[in-house]
């Protein structure tokens, strides 16, 4: 039950917090404080709503209430809590892939590499049925046979995800078995992400790293502005940008993949402050997809007379006319909103984003590791969580790790956090990095920033990079000094992502603590049992600690591997 002392580290966001409190507009932070104390049973995973006899809890202090009505004890509840998060997260990746693949199949857009796109769609279909996806074959053979030996290698992917989801509904099993099912589910999510990345490349062509501007300063009041929120079909996104270009309408994004070649949409802000761009008064219409979109946006939009267009509706129509309608409505909204005053902070930062695995020479990274120039590789991922000061944890951790010569890669919203603070600006590279790391980065390319963004959660840049590391170093992924860290995670997708990262053999730290802590056996299994099976632990840290302690934990975990 902690109240928030400082809401955000982003000054552009802080500028609007005062205004919000004066106007009594409730933002995510206010709603969090209003919800305190949060339910302790839910927070520790000691609750269950999976049937209608409940809700049940396992009360830590009441002997007559230790097991649920069906007999789930605290260990089963803890493990189920993990399975539930992973299943939902994996579904997130599968949904993104499905939305895209079915649009491609329906003939929307004109794929650059048609045969490849068709092959990936066929592969996706096979995966949604009972066949194995070919994309899983990209993993090293030893890893695949390891996964097969443990029984976590997913075959008919969706069919097996159904099985994983049914683990929550009953049956007898122990914690360790349940966790293996969860990892199986997570790997399905991983395959979906890889397929989506490949499909995107086949449809739009390969992306190259691109310089973008990030933060609220990218907004302007001269033309109508459309803001894209969350995840929806990249083809629709491309259409919207294409139509908007012709009509001189600006398109920017929040919590969405910034790259839809040949276009890009600059990230205005990241998850924690997704409500803030509307407060500038410069936004005329928002297009909302699914997943990382706060339902609060609809109510807030009314205050500034902003149009809201959800894309994930039951009847959508064809993409081109939908895109045209969106742009037209944005133009009308711009006229209608001419009297709304604007307040755009002049805060923006330049960032080079959108690297893919081929843009980073894995051989050089492997050599630098072997030569001791860098101490390891750290993956920074996850978005924002209102339980932590926005962006503070991730940026302070990145600062510490870079100083200590750790090669940092990032993904998704974490990249936007880091971009806002200049970690993705090549000009600031040497100020952030230690000498060894600086040397490596400059050998990788002139425009490589301190932290390398390997794309959004819609493409598998990170996984592909890990695979190229493994083939360059002729080693198992688990044998490299690598660590993954989710300093401000909040989505179920992040949990699934963390799970498959562990399955690949990369020790993973996850903040805030996962709702499994009610079961010591589950917490122990996520570290000990995972270490035995995958060679890496999923650390559930409950102690409160400063970023320096967190950085020390990460460094220690890198040293173990050296």
């Amino acid at each position, binding site marked *: *039950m902690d109240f928030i002392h400082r809401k955000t580290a982003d000054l552009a966001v802080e500028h609007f917090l005062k205004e919000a409190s004066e106007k009594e507009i409730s933002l995510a932070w206010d709603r969090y404080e209003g919800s305190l*104390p949060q*339910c*302790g*049973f839910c*927070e*520790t995973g*000691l609750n269950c709503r999976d049937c209608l006899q409940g809700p049940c*809890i396992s*009360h*830590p*202090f*009441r*002997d007559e209430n230790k097991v649920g009505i069906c007999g789930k004890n605290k260990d089963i509840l803890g493990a189920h809590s993990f399975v539930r998060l992973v299943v939902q997260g994996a579904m997130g990746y599968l949904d993104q892939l499905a939305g895209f693949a079915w649009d491609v199949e329906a003939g929307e857009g004109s794929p650059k590499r048609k045969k490849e796109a068709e092959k990936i769609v066929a592969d996706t279909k096979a995966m949604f049925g009972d066949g194995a996806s070919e994309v899983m074959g990209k993993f090293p053979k030893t890893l695949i046979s390891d996964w097969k030996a443990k029984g976590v290698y997913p075959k008919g992917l969706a069919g097996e995800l159904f099985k994983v989801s049914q683990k929550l509904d009953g049956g007898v099993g122990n914690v360790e078995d349940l966790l293996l099912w969860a990892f199986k589910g997570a790997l399905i999510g991983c395959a979906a992400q890889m397929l989506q990345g490949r499909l995107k490349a086949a449809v739009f062509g390969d992306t190259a790293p691109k310089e973008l501007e990030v933060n609220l300063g990218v907004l302007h009041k001269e033309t109508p502005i459309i803001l894209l929120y969350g995840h929806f079909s990249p083809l629709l996104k491309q259409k919207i940008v294409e139509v908007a270009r012709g009509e001189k309408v600006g398109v920017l994004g929040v919590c969405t993949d910034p790259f839809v070649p040949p276009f890009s949409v600059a990230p205005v802000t990241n998850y924690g402050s997704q409500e803030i761009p509307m407060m500038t008064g410069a936004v005329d219409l928002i297009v909302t997809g699914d997943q990382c979109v706060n339902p609060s946006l609809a109510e807030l939009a009314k205050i500034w007379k902003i149009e809201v267009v959800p894309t994930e509706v039951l009847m959508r129509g064809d993409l081109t006319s939908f895109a045209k309608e969106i742009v037209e409505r944005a133009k009308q909204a711009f006229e209608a909103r001419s009297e709304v005053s604007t307040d755009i902070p002049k805060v923006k930062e330049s960032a080079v984003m959108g690297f893919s695995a081929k843009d980073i020479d894995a051989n050089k990274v492997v050599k630098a590791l072997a030569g001791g120039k860098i101490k390891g590789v750290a993956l920074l991922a996850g978005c924002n969580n209102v339980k932590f000061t926005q962006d503070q944890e991730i940026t302070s951790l990145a600062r510490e790790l870079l100083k200590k010569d750790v090669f940092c890669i990032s993904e998704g919203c974490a990249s936007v956090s880091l971009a806002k603070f200049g970690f993705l600006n090549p000009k600031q590279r040497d100020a952030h990095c230690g000498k060894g790391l600086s040397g490596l980065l400059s050998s990788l390319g002139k425009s490589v920033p301190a932290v390398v963004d390997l794309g959004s959660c819609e493409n598998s840049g990170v996984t592909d990079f890990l695979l190229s590391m493994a083939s360059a170093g002729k080693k198992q992924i688990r044998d490299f000094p690598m660590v993954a860290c989710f300093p401000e995670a909040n989505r179920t997708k992040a949990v699934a992502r963390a799970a498959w990262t562990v399955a690949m053999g990369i020790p993973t730290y996850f903040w805030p*603590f996962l709702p499994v*802590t*009610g079961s*010591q056996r589950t917490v122990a299994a996520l570290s000990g049992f995972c270490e035995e099976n995958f060679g890496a632990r999923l650390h559930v840290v*409950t102690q409160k600690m400063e970023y320096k302690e967190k950085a020390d934990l990460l460094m220690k975990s890198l040293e173990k591997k050296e």
Partner: protein
Amino acid sequence: MKVIKVDPEKCTQCHTCDLWCGIEIGSETKELNDAIHDTPQPVPRVHVEGNNFPLHCRHCEVAPCIDACPNGTMRRDPQTGLVYVYEPTCIACWMCVMVCPFGIIAPSASFHAAVKCDRCRNMDYPICVDVCPTKALVLEDREEGATWYGYAPKRSF
């Protein structure tokens, strides 16, 4: 004297009050994730048992537990009027447990003492009132010696 008023209409039996009572009052660490694994298991002072009514000590004016206690372990704070257990002298005879009309005194074999609500007398605010999400629990002033039947009984000390 301030007492905890319970509104059964608002109580959803979520057990948040007894969870946090166990953490804040019953455990040494006072941290959720540590307290839930403490041994011996912390004993909450408030009991939510079936009838939308979190049961606390009523701090009776005529308190049978004080009268039954053989060695003055059950005491009343003269300033606040709150009844509490002075644990160092408790001999775990469970006389108070037997006589309490509400059954709210827990005989704790592991702590070798009677455990009961002292309305968080050493804190600014009772923890159960603080955490109740529906405000079914509120802290209210009760007039000294006031009873519904019009006369004040002799208070037990």
